[in-house]
């Protein structure tokens, strides 16, 4: 099992990329690539990652990388994998790195299709909770109350940040009954690396949803990326879970630090009213009740004797 100390010195996502200082997405990609190693092909849709890793004539990946369209991450990666298989290179990992917009909104139908066909790819969503590349527009995974340029602050109760709660993409993927769905956070390296390791080893469709704080879009300090990733989990706002071959496990019981601790570090939540904070607290509570019930229902199956067919 990979721990931080076992990671290779070699990078496959190289320095010189043009991500903002303190970019959570760049961290996710760099660490995932360290685990996946040289025998990998990368697909990226339009995203921050594409812009900061592949600015002509430079390219930050040491392995082949490919871009087609925003909505095609899962299907294009699946096509690459099928072609490689045909060429006898089935041992090559094909990974798609997409942002939350390219996953939860624009890439959803291709993602759902590829998951339903159980294509043999690893799909990593680095979730920075808005369309950061184009200038902080709301996405399906933007949390309740967050300011973005398309959920601006106005004078009415309607105009106080996003009115909807975050779309739960891992749960959508679980409904596809794929071999592996997991969420991870940069704040918990051991858990994160364990999940990337597992996802690499498995066959079939694997989905990894990693929270990747964006200091620019979240209006936070550039050195707070890791703290935010930790606090998101410890406040219960982001759940670390794993759905493996039909069994759902909640990986970490959070300390339930008050959500304010997490919100106050971010300028995008600066305007929140007491009522909105109470809504977030209630949402966290409801989510944990639901997830616990789900984990109970989808927990390890008791061993039942197989009926003998006479």
């Amino acid at each position, binding site marked *: 099992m990979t721990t*931080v100390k076992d990671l290779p010195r070699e990078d496959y996502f190289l320095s010189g990329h043009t991500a*903002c200082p303190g970019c*959570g997405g760049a961290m996710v990609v760099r660490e995932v690539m360290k685990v996946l190693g040289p025998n990998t092909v990368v697909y990226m849709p339009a995203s921050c990652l594409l812009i900061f*890793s592949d600015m002509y004539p430079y390219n930050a990946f040491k392995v082949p990388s490919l871009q087609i369209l925003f909505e095609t991450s899962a299907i294009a990666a699946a096509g690459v994998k099928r072609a490689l298989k045909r060429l006898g290179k089935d041992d090559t990992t094909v990974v798609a790195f997409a942002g939350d917009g390219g996953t939860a909104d624009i890439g959803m139908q291709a993602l759902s299709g590829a998951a339903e066909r159980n294509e043999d790819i690893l799909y990593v969503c680095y979730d920075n909770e808005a369309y950061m590349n184009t200038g902080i527009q709301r996405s399906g995974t933007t949390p309740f109350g967050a300011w973005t340029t398309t959920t601006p602050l106005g004078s009415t109760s309607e105009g106080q940040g996003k009115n909807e709660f975050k779309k739960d993409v891992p749960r959508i993927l679980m409904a596809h009954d794929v071999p592996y769905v997991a969420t991870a956070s940069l704040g918990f390296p051991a858990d994160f690396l364990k999940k990337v390791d597992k996802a690499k080893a498995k066959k079939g469709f694997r989905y990894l949803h990693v929270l990747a704080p964006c200091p620019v879009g979240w209006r936070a300090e550039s050195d*707070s990326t890791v703290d935010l990733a930790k606090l998101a989990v410890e406040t219960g706002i982001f759940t670390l879970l794993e759905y493996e071959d039909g069994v759902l496990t909640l990986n970490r019981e959070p300390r339930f630090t008050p959500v304010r601790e997490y919100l106050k570090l971010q300028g995008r939540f600066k305007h929140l009213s007491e009522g909105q904070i109470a809504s977030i607290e209630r949402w966290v509570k409801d989510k944990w009740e639901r997830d616990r019930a789900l984990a109970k229902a989808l927990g390890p199956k008791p061993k039942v004797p197989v009926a003998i067919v006479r």
Partner: protein
Amino acid sequence: MAAQALAVAASHDGYSAIAFPFFGAERRGAPVLAFTRFGEERLRVRTQVYEPHFVVVLDESLVETVDVLAGLRPGGMVIVNTTRAPDRLVLSKKAKSATVDATTIALKHTKQAAVNTAMLGAFAKATGLITLEGVEAGIMEVFGRRLSKEIADRNVAAARAAYEATRLGEGDSGRVYAKATKWLPTAQELPPGLATPPMETPFGRVGVGSSPSNLTGGWRVNKPVLDGAECTNCLLCWFYCPDGSITRGEKIVEIHYEYCKGCGICAAVCAPKAIHMEREIEEEVKA
């Protein structure tokens, strides 16, 4: 935004003015371009500015890689954010110059290394074309409307302080730049197909795995400094560094500065506090 504020300032002072950025994929801290054009007559030219009368350099480290005087008109002036005196600038040719330590001013007044508004104050002082009142009106209009009045006020204070601190002089010639720093191949030189394979060019490596040709260290304001005696080699900084600027050494980690953007994450995750961030100053202010 500062280019826009300058245009508003010029218009406040009775000129007609336009401003616009260079459109690209800018990231926070990356080198960018923006243009302002103003004059007494109605402006009919809408192109980028190729032959400026004034060049404003927001980050001194740019001077090392970009010939900022390229295209500068005779008698033109360069205004640089630096701790140096104007006479101590070494550029590609002799030119009138003005300097101001806008980073210190911006950190003091706005708590951020966003130096653009301070540089507007320096521009007003150095050129004398725009009044300080105009600059204030420009900042209030652009920053006050898009951010908040409080932020605009702080930026006005920064512009005022920079106006007072700006020094005038003449920069020296003698810096030599490579003829071209960009790889601009002709259609014939490009390999067939849609992908760029790894290739060595006179301008460095391009294609797959070539990003190390692109040094991003110049983006930095603060730099991490390691106290080797305190380092426990837990490798968290090495794990988290988004730019791969920390390597594993024999016993402890090593920090490299070619790509470090100064985000400060290594210092934030360091449990024994062996890494701290300090302001990077190329040369102390000479009184």
